[in-house]
C-alpha cells in the first residue's frame, strides 16, 4: 500500500465515524439523482417498448366535424384496418343514485380500436358486448365515487344505458385524465340514437388506422394533410406521440433532477463545512509530517484521499438508497404516467447519477483541503497561526470557477437549455452571495458595533463567538440559511398554488355552470334558476366560428404555403366566441379601446382579442381578421387586446364581439350561478334538467374536489422530493453543530476548569445559536419570499401567497431546530468531567 493510502487510513482512525457521518450529508442528494435518473431510463424504455400502444394505432386523424363520405372512402383505400370514434362532453347521471350528475366524456367506438395495447375493462371483454343493446362502460373511478354497480343505469342525454363494465385503462392515456373528464363508452349506433350529436354541440370525430407494416406512416400523414388541408384535420402518429411524451417526461425529470441536485448541493456544502473544521484540526499533524519530510502535495493527497473516500462512501450509500427511491417513484407518479413501468436498474443512469454526486462532493471537499498545501512545517515549532500563508490562492479561485461550471453544466444538461440552467446557477450563486454577505455583516457588527460594557459575561462571550478566530458564522449561516430558504420556498410555493386554486371559486364567485342552453331556452332557464334561489351571475352567448383570413391572407393559403411561426392550431381551431357590451371582471384591456356596440351592418367589426392569442396570431391593434361564422364570412379588426384571468371560473373568451353583429347567428348559451350547498346544487340542477334535458352542468365544488385531489397528488410528488432537501438540511445542520461542538470543546473545558457553571455554558451557547438561528432563518426566509414572488410571477402567472403564519412558523421552527440540536449535541460537553473530554478529544 502506498504511503499516501496508508497514512490516509491511519490518520482517519479517530475520525472515521465522524467522516462517515459527513458522507451522510450527500447520501440523499445522490439518492435522488440516482433514483430519478434510473427511473428516467425505465420510462424511456417503457416508451420505446410500448410505443404503438401509446396511441393505440399507427395513425389517428381528428376533425371537429363528421368526416365527409368521400374522405372516408379515401381512407378505406389506404389498406389496413380502420376504426371510427366520436367523443363529446356531456352530462352523465345515475338514476339509481338520486340522479347524481357529472360532466364526463362520452365516446362511441366502431371498429377494433385499440389495435395495439389493451383497453382494460372489468369484467374483461366488456367492450365486445357494447353493441348488444343500450350498454355503457363507465370510468371505474366514477362508479366508485358514486357507488354505482355493474347493471345499474346511467343516463346520457335523453337515453338510458345499462352499465356493463368498468373502464380500467386506455392505452396512452394517464389516470389523471379520468379525474378531470371521466370517460364513458357506448356503441356508435346508440350514440347516434341519443340527441347528443344534434344541434351545435361540439364533438370530436376520429379515425384510427392500423396500416400495413410497409406503409411509411409519417409520409402518409403528410400526404393526407396536403390533400385534405381544407378540412383542417389533425394527424397524430406514433412518432409524434412518442416525441410529445418524451418532451413532457424530460420536463418533469429535469425539474425533479434539479430538486434532487439542490439536496446534493446542500449536502456538499455540509461536507465542505465539516471538512473545513476537520482540516483545521489536522494542521499540526500536517506541519509535523512536513517536518518529517512529507511534501506539500503528498500531505494534500493524504487528505484528498480521505475526502474522496467520503464521496465514494456517500455515492455508494446514495446509490443504494437511490435504487429504493427508484422503486418508490413509480408509485408516487403512477397517476401521471400513461403506461405501465417495469422496474429495472439502469446501471448507466446509476453510474451517471453517482458520478455527478461524487464529482460535486469531491469538488466541495477540495475547497477546504486546498489549505493543506499551504501548511508550513514551521507551525510544528511555532504555535502562532499568523505564520500561515495568507496570500490569495489562485487555485482556490480556479476551483470556484470549476464548481460554478460544474453546477451550470449539470443544470444545462438536465434542463436541456442554457437559459433555465443559467437561471438556476445564478439563483444558487445569488443565494450564496447574500448569505455570505450577511455572515460578514454579522461578524463585523459583533466585532465593532455591539456595546460590550452593559452586557453580561454570558452575552459578551456568546456574541464574541460570532467573530472570534475559528468562528463558524459563515458556515452556519450558509448551511442553515440555505436549508431554510429551500424548505420555505417549497412551502410558500405550495401556498401560492393552493391560493390560486382557492381564488377560482371562493367568495361570491359562481360555482355552478350550465352549458348548451339553446337560444330558445335561455329565458326559461333564467326563470328556473331564479325560482330556485340561484340567480344567474354571468351569462354569455356562444357562437362557433373559424378564422378564414388574417390581415388579408387566406388561412388555407397560409396552411399550404407556410405560416411563419403562427401555431397551426390557432389557425385551424374552432373559436367559441361571444358578444357583449362591456368588459367583465375577469378581464382588462391592455391595448386599444374596447368597443361594446356597433350598428348592425357595420362593414368592419371591432373585436377584442385575448393578448396571448393575438401574439400567437401575430396580430396588433388595427389588424384585420376575417371569420367564417358557420358559413358566413365576417370581416373584423382588432380594436383592443385583453388580459384574461383564465383560472377564474367565469365564461371567458378568446374573441369578444360587440353587440349588434352576431345576434342573428345560431348560438347556445353558457351561464354561471352560485349555490350555497351541495344540496342546493343538486336541487337547481334537477329543476333545470327536468324542463331542459339537453342542458348540461358542472358543479364547481365537485370540480374543486377533483382539482384538490389532483393537486394533493402533485403536492405529494413535490413533498416527496422536498423531503430529500429537508432531511439533508437537518443532517447538515446536525453536522455543522457537531463539528462546532468539537471546535469549541477545548474552550468549553477551559471555561469549566476556570469555574463556569453548566448553566453559564448553556447560556453562552444559547446566545450564539439564537443569533445564528434567527439570522439564518430570517435571511433564508427573505430569500424564499423573493424566490416565491419570482416563481409565482414568471412560472405560475399568479400572485405569491405568503401566509405570515407559515412564514413565522417556518422561521420559528428553523430557530428551534438550531437551538435544540445545538443544546442537545453540546450536552455531553457540559456534563462530563473536563479531563475525560480532554483525553477523548486529543
Amino acid at each position, binding site marked *: 500500500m502506498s504511503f499516501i493510502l496508508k497514512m490516509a487510513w491511519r490518520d482517519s482512525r479517530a475520525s472515521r465515524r465522524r467522516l462517515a457521518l459527513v458522507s451522510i450529508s450527500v447520501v440523499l442528494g445522490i439518492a435522488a439523482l440516482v433514483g430519478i435518473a434510473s427511473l428516467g431510463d425505465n420510462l424511456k424504455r417503457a416508451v420505446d417498448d410500448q410505443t404503438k400502444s401509446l396511441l393505440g394505432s399507427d395513425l389517428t386523424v381528428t376533425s371537429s366535424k363528421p368526416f365527409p363520405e368521400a374522405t372516408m372512402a379515401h381512407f378505406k383505400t389506404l389498406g389496413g384496418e380502420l376504426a371510427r370514434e366520436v367523443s363529446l362532453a356531456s352530462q352523465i347521471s345515475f338514476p339509481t343514485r338520486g340522479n347524481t350528475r357529472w360532466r364526463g366524456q362520452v365516446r362511441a367506438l366502431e371498429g377494433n380500436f385499440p389495435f395495439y395495447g389493451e383497453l382494460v375493462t372489468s369484467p374483461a371483454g366488456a367492450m365486445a358486448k357494447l353493441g348488444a343493446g343500450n350498454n355503457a362502460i363507465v370510468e371505474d373511478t366514477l362508479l366508485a365515487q358514486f357507488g354505482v354497480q355493474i347493471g345499474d343505469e346511467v343516463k346520457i342525454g335523453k337515453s338510458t344505458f345499462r352499465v356493463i363494465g368498468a373502464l380500467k385503462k386506455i392505452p396512452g392515456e394517464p389516470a389523471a385524465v379520468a379525474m378531470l373528464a371521466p370517460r364513458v363508452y357506448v356503441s356508435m349506433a346508440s350514440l347516434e340514437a341519443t340527441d347528443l350529436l344534434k344541434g351545435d354541440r361540439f364533438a370530436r370525430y376520429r379515425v384510427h388506422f392500423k396500416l400495413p407494416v410497409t406503409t411509411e406512416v409519417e409520409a402518409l400523414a403528410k400526404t393526407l394533410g396536403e390533400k385534405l388541408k381544407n378540412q383542417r384535420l389533425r394527424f397524430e402518429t406514433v412518432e409524434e406521440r412518442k416525441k410529445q411524451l418524451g418532451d413532457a417526461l424530460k420536463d418533469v425529470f429535469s425539474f425533479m433532477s434539479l430538486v434532487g441536485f439542490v439536496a446534493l448541493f446542500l449536502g456538499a456544502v455540509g461536507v465542505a463545512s465539516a471538512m473545513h473544521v476537520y482540516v483545521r484540526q489536522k494542521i499540526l499533524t500536517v506541519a509535523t509530517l512536513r517536518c518529517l*519530510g512529507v511534501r506539500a502535495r*503528498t500531505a494534500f493527497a493524504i487528505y484528498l484521499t480521505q475526502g474522496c473516500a467520503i464521496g465514494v462512501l456517500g455515492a455508494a450509500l446514495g446509490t443504494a438508497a437511490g435504487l429504493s427511491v427508484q422503486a418508490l417513484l413509480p408509485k408516487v407518479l403512477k397517476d401521471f404516467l400513461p403506461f405501465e413501468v417495469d422496474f429495472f436498474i439502469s446501471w448507466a443512469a446509476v453510474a451517471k447519477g453517482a458520478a455527478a454526486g461524487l464529482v460535486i462532493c469531491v469538488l466541495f471537499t477540495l475547497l477546504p483541503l486546498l489549505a493543506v498545501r499551504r501548511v508550513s512545517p*514551521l507551525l510544528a515549532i511555532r504555535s502562532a497561526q499568523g505564520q500561515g500563508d495568507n496570500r490569495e490562492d489562485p487555485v482556490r479561485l480556479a476551483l470556484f470557477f470549476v464548481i460554478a461550471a460544474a453546477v451550470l453544466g449539470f443544470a444545462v444538461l438536465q434542463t436541456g437549455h442554457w437559459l433555465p440552467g443559467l437561471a438556476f446557477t445564478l439563483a444558487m450563486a445569488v443565494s450564496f452571495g447574500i448569505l455570505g454577505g450577511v455572515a460578514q455583516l454579522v461578524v463585523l457588527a459583533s466585532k465593532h458595533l455591539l456595546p460590550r460594557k452593559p452586557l453580561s459575561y454570558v452575552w459578551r462571550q456568546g456574541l464574541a463567538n460570532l467573530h472570534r478566530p475559528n468562528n463558524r458564522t459563515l458556515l452556519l449561516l450558509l448551511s442553515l440559511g440555505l436549508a431554510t430558504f429551500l424548505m420555505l420556498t417549497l412551502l410558500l410555493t405550495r401556498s401560492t398554488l393552493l391560493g390560486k386554486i382557492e381564488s377560482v371559486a371562493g367568495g361570491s364567485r359562481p360555482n355552478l355552470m350550465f352549458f348548451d342552453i339553446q337560444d330558445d331556452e335561455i329565458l326559461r332557464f333564467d326563470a328556473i334558476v331564479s325560482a330556485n334561489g340561484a340567480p344567474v351571475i354571468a351569462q354569455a352567448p356562444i357562437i362557433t366560428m373559424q378564422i378564414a383570413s388574417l390581415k388579408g391572407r387566406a388561412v388555407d393559403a397560409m396552411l399550404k404555403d407556410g405560416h411563419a411561426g403562427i401555431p397551426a392550431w390557432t389557425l385551424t381551431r374552432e373559436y367559441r366566441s361571444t358578444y357583449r357590451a362591456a368588459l367583465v371582471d375577469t378581464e382588462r384591456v391592455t391595448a386599444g379601446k374596447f368597443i361594446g356596440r356597433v350598428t348592425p351592418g357595420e362593414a368592419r367589426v371591432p373585436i377584442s382579442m385575448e393578448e396571448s392569442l393575438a401574439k400567437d396570431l401575430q396580430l396588433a391593434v388595427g389588424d384585420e381578421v376575417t371569420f367564417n361564422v358557420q358559413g358566413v364570412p365576417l370581416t373584423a379588426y382588432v380594436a383592443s387586446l385583453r388580459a384574461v384571468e383564465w383560472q377564474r371560473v367565469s365564461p371567458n373568451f378568446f374573441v369578444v364581439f360587440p353587440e349588434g353583429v352576431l345576434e342573428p347567428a345560431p348560438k347556445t348559451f353558457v351561464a354561471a350561478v352560485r349555490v350555497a350547498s351541495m344540496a342546493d346544487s343538486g336541487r337547481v340542477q334537477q329543476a333545470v334538467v327536468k324542463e331542459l334535458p339537453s342542458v348540461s352542468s358542472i358543479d364547481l365544488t365537485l370540480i374543486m374536489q377533483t382539482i384538490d385531489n389532483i393537486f394533493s397528488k402533485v403536492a405529494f410528488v413535490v413533498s416527496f422530493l422536498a423531503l430529500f432537501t429537508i432531511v439533508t438540511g437537518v443532517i447538515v445542520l446536525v453536522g455543522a453543530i457537531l463539528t462546532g461542538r468539537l471546535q469549541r470543546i477545548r474552550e468549553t473545558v477551559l471555561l469549566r476548569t476556570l469555574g463556569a457553571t453548566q448553566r453559564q455554558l448553556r447560556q453562552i451557547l444559547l446566545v450564539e445559536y439564537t443569533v445564528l438561528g434567527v439570522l439564518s432563518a430570517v435571511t433564508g426566509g427573505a430569500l424564499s419570499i423573493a424566490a416565491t414572488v419570482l416563481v409565482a410571477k414568471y412560472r405560475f402567472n399568479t400572485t405569491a401567497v405568503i401566509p405570515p403564519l407559515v412564514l413565522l412558523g417556518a422561521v420559528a421552527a428553523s430557530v428551534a431546530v438550531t437551538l435544540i440540536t445545538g443544546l442537545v449535541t453540546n450536552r455531553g460537553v457540559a456534563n462530563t468531567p473536563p479531563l475525560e473530554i480532554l483525553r477523548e478529544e486529543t
Partner: protein
Amino acid sequence: MLKVERLTKTYKAAGGPLTVLRDVTFELQPGASVAIVGPSGSGKTTLLGLCAGLDRPTSGNVILAGESIGAMNEDERALVRNRHIGFVFQNFQLVPTLTALENVTVPIELRGDSGRAVTGRGRELLERVGLGERGDHYPVQLSGGEQQRVALARAFMNEPKILFCDEPTGNLDGDTATAMVKLILDLNHEKKTTLVLVTHDLELAKKCRRIIRLRSGLVVSDEMI
C-alpha cells in the same frame, strides 16, 4: 555538516518589518553538538527553523550535508529533511492517530519502504528508548515523557546526519528531563549524529560541546566548552 552564512530573517508586521535574526554565521562539523541559547524572543527557534529548512531566510544561506537549501523549493527541502534530519519538539508533535510504532516508522515509510524490516527497526528503536512494550499504544495513552521518547525514536529512525531538538525537556519534569537528555546525548554519541539543541536551560546547554548565545537576533557569543 551544517554551514550557516550571514543568515537574516525579517517578518512583515503591522508596525513595519521586524528583523528577528541578523547576519548569523557559523559552521558545524559532523558529530558536533551545539546548544543555541538565549532569552525568549532572541531568535533561537527562528534560527533552528531556518537551519532545518522549515522556512526560507530573507537573506543568507544554509548548506546542510553539502546541499545549499536556501535556493530549494519547499518540496526539495522536504526531501532533504527526510534524508538527513531528525526532529525532537518541545510539544512532542506525535501524530495522534498513529500508534507509537507507526509514529516511529513514518519517516522511512515516507520513502516508500515498509515491511518487516522497517517494523523491526522501529521496535528496536522503541526498545532503545525503553518503550518496547508500548508500540501499539496511541499518544493519548502515553505520558509526556513517554511521548517524548517516542519522538526521539522517530527522530533516529531515518538515521539522520543532524538532529534538531527544540526545547526537548521544556514540557518534562526534572527526573524525566534528565533521563531524556541522557538518551539524546547517548544516541547522539552512539549514532555519531550532529546535534543542534535549542534551549534556554543553561545546565542542559552545557552538556553540548559548543554554545551559541543569541540576543535580539544577533550572535553575542560562540564558545567551545
